[in-house]
């Protein structure tokens, strides 16, 4: 089935040409990278751009560059690229966990991290990993580039801080100051391809500083700052964990939808909080963790 509406297609070879097209057409155009969200949305009539700008021929976007204090993930990097990358496997295991939970191989070979962020759905698997690492999104327009902290990037379901003439150029991930253990847990309805009913990312270091973020449990993916503050410096005793679960109920705002009820999301988040925090500690102590097995093999 061809799409009902007609549009112009451009595949510029340089970033400058892409920005010029974007600057001219603004809301009337859409950026095409992997297309795994955009084409579905166009088929279903949710968006009907007059111009589609394919950025796959822009050369510099297809690399993960490693610098002294950070890595920079280009907008053309797919989830399959992330899964295969040594610097992601060793330096940012939580992002590796998350990338492996996104859809399936045939989608991950096209879908990009930048496109995932631009789609800004509440169940965004890559968001908790970026939130706990204090990532920045580098956006470009004809006026120049700017850095948007990931905490300020998501404004609502499918709404981001990007301006109509801006494109995501890259995602900057700073290296952590010290050794930390980190893990992403995703609960879906079945093994295989599904969106998250709940997603939680956890980071812990030897001084018991915690960083925690969630997705599919509020209008946007978010850091769980109240739980972080409560847990700071504390050992994970059964009493501390049960208090953290109480605070968690105030921190998230899940809804009932086709994938799970609000009550189930609240309950299962407590289970994920407990198992995820312990798994992050296990990783800190170099013990092997298989996130997909922590929730009964369903992930």
């Amino acid at each position, binding site marked *: *089935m*061809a799409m009902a509406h007609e549009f112009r*297609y451009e595949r510029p070879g340089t970033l400058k040409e892409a920005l010029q097209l974007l600057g001219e057409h603004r809301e009337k155009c859409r950026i*095409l990278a992997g297309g*795994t969200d955009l084409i579905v949305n166009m088929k279903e009539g949710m968006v009907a751009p007059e111009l589609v700008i394919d950025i796959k021929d822009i050369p510099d976007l297809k690399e993960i560059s490693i610098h002294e204090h950070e890595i920079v993930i280009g907008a053309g990097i797919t989830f399959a690229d992330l899964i295969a990358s040594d610097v992601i496997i060793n330096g940012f295991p939580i992002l590796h966990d998350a990338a492996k939970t996104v859809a*399936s*191989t*045939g989608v991950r070979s*096209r879908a990009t991290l930048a496109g995932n962020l631009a789609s800004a759905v509440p169940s965004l698997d890559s968001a908790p990993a970026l939130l706990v690492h204090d990532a920045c999104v580098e956006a470009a327009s004809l006026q120049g580039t700017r850095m948007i902290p990931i905490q300020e990037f998501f404004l609502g379901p499918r709404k981001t801080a990007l301006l109509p003439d801006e494109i995501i150029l890259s995602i900057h991930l700073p290296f952590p100051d010290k050794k930390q253990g980190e893990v992403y847990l995703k609960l879906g309805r079945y093994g295989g*391809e599904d969106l998250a009913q709940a997603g939680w990312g956890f980071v812990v270091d030897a001084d018991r500083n915690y960083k925690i973020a969630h997705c599919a449990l509020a209008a946007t993916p978010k850091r769980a700052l109240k739980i972080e503050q409560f847990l700071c410096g504390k050992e994970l005793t059964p009493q501390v964990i049960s208090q953290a679960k109480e605070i968690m109920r105030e921190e998230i705002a899940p809804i009932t939808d086709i994938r799970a009820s609000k009550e189930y999301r609240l309950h299962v988040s407590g289970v994920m909080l407990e198992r995820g925090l312990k798994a992050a500690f296990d990783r800190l102590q170099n013990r092997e963790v298989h996130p997909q097995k922590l929730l009964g093999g369903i992930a």
Partner: protein
Amino acid sequence: MKEISLILNHEPRTVMVAPNEILLDVLREKLGVKSPKCGCERGDCGACTVLLDGTCVRSCLVLAIEVEGHEITTVEGISQDKLSTLQEAFIEFNSFQCGYCAPGIILAVTELLEKHPHPSLEEIKESIAGNLCRCTGYTPIFDAIMAVSKEGK
């Protein structure tokens, strides 16, 4: 309309496409390649899987115009002279019944075996996690793949 050139099953081809035409439709209706199937049309079922430059993609989520200058391979392209060892194994193990998912699964596993000739059961499951089969319940599919990967050892 624009004329695009691509390599389809090892053969150079050209075809006229409009920007809003989907690769799956162009393969089936304009280029005569019928193995990729239309299932969900939104990337969930894997029936439309094709190899784009050797990597599995969902042809229902790719614009035909995007593959200008690229290489597309379908089941027709991997069994031009005779069936592959993998295809023979699928027959031997009665892996498929209706066959609608078969082209997608054959391509997904062909890519897997090229990258990892001796995958674990977990790796096999992950490689076809996005290919739905509603007939045989996956077990005879896994059995056939395990048999092929052991043969080469």
